[in-house]
């Protein structure tokens, strides 16, 4: 269920602009990998390239190799839609579909992809996904009410439930807690710890304490200056990155002596 991602000399472009340069890394399955770094350093771009979401922007492309369990995600004939069905994503701001109820939101991925299933099975999938996202107890009595009526933290967990209902191999999270209060953040961090057992999780965060709390390994991205491409500076086990980083740049960022 959970798969390994390997990037080899990956460059990411938006038209002529090179946004990320020469990233090579291995993202281990059944573990949480955190990307940290200053704004504009390309960590979100790199994350979005992992399920080809950056292609939504016109003129975006990559050079280099990106392998999911050895299969090239950017190989000839690869359909981005198939990639996204296996690599789910949770965004910075909660974005439940406003026209759908809570239950319809959870099942949106399955329904929109033409999976036909009997009502009982739908209920089971819905309950499993909501339990997986720690939301079941809060919403079980109002599954038919609109998803936009939930609180911000609940909406974000609803989006996680929606992503895991598709049973993806990998779950990408782009600053999932940055719009949430500390209690909702805690709930989502706990959830990430539980999800780790079954999924490969990659999380982008600006909160270094969060990276230290939830991740097994950490990658630090940085940017040389405005207009320069972002680069992977250092990657390693989280404990090592936060205690004895190899590069001075990393230490400066982590200790707040940046720039």
């Amino acid at each position: 269920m959970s798969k390994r991602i390997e990037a080899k000399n990956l460059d990411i472009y938006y038209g002529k602009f090179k946004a990320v340069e020469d990233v090579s890394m291995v993202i281990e399955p059944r573990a949480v990998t955190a990307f940290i770094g200053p704004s504009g350093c390309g960590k979100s771009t790199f994350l979005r390239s992992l399920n080809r979401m950056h292609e939504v922007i016109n003129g975006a492309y990559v050079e280099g190799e990106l392998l999911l369990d050895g299969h090239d995600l950017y190989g000839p004939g690869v359909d981005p839609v198939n990639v996204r069905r296996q690599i789910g994503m949770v965004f910075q701001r909660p974005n439940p579909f406003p026209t759908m109820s809570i239950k319809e939101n959870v099942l949106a991925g399955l329904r929109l992809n033409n999976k036909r299933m009997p009502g009982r099975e739908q209920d089971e999938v819905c309950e499993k996904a909501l339990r997986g996202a720690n939301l079941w107890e809060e919403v079980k009595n109002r599954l038919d009410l609109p998803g936009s009526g939930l609180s911000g933290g609940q909406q974000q967990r609803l989006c996680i439930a929606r992503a895991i209902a598709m049973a993806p191999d990998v779950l990408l999270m782009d600053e999932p807690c940055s719009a949430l209060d500390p209690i909702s953040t805690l709930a989502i961090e706990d959830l990430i710890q539980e999800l780790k057992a079954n999924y490969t999780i990659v999380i982008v965060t600006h909160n270094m304490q969060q990276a230290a709390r939830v991740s097994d390994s950490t990658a630090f991205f940085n940017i040389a200056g405005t207009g320069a491409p972002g680069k992977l500076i250092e990657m390693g086990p989280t404990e090592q990155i936060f205690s004895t980083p190899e590069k001075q740049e990393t230490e400066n960022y982590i200790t707040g002596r940046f720039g």
Partner: protein
Amino acid sequence: MSTATAPRQSAQAPVDNPLTAGQLPSWVTIAVGVAALAVSALVFTLLDTGGIALIVVGAVVLFLVVMHIISLAVEGSRRAVDRLAKHVVVTMFLLALLPLISVTWTALSHGINRLDPEFFTYSMRNVVGAGGGAAHAVWGTLIITGIATLISVPIGLLTAVYLAEYGRGALARSITFFVDVMTGIPSIVAGLFAYALFTLVFGPGTINGIAGAVALSVLMIPVVVRSTEELLRIVPNELREASYALGVPKWKTIMRIVIPTAVSGIVAGVILALARIMGETAPLMIAAGFTQSMNTNPFSGQMMTLPVFVFDSYARPGIPREPFWDRAWTGSLTLILIVMLLNLAGRFIAKRFAPKTGRK
């Protein structure tokens, strides 16, 4: 001026609180208004000129000036300007409301005479004087605008989807440009276009309901395209991304996420466009023609519509004229009622399909 009210002692601020400022009690506004009206009436009556309209205009100007001066004296310049702006806004609002009320009242008072069952069940076939009705015109309007909607909505909606979701570069720009040009086409040109088109294809003198519907859809398509495109553009990109991230293909994202999110606005836009074309007269006179008889077959024969019926009854009445003019008024009233019903239906649909928000 008799209206000059001295600053009140009660409006004076207590000495100890530096945050207070002079305030006019609310009755001053009313008093100044009444006084201004009285003075204006007196002056114009003494001068022996003007009617009610001039008196009202004089009163309004007087009121604005006097209120501003009083407020300036008591409340200071910021509050005075604030009051002046508020009073100008209210005046303009009433001014804008005036023609609306006047039109509604005129149509209602003249049209009510013939607002009877006969009007909606009889055509004008073999009617020379009183009696008769506009059943043929009501049916004609409903059929022709219905067909125009059936033509315009798919074309308009799909064009808007192309522009908002797919269109890039020169093609999209030129489509946008030509849609804008289409918006500015005079309606009579649309009628001539439809007439010429049907003459080319089906031979000279082909005047029927479909030709009228084509003329109206030329007018309706650009309105639908523009309103739908705007609404599709304001659907947040996050929803599209959320859908893509679930592995949903683009066309299905548009069909199932983007359009449903915007559907209430799209429906409202279509209804507005429909209401707009329903009152078109010129293109229908050319393309759909005149008739006194009921014709429900849009593919053959001339077809009457309400605006043309109104024009025809008014401009070419028989003798005596009064029954024709009565029918013209009732025809206009019926048109207003149909458009109003459509608007209400549109609101209902919009509310029914609007994205569900709020808790519980």
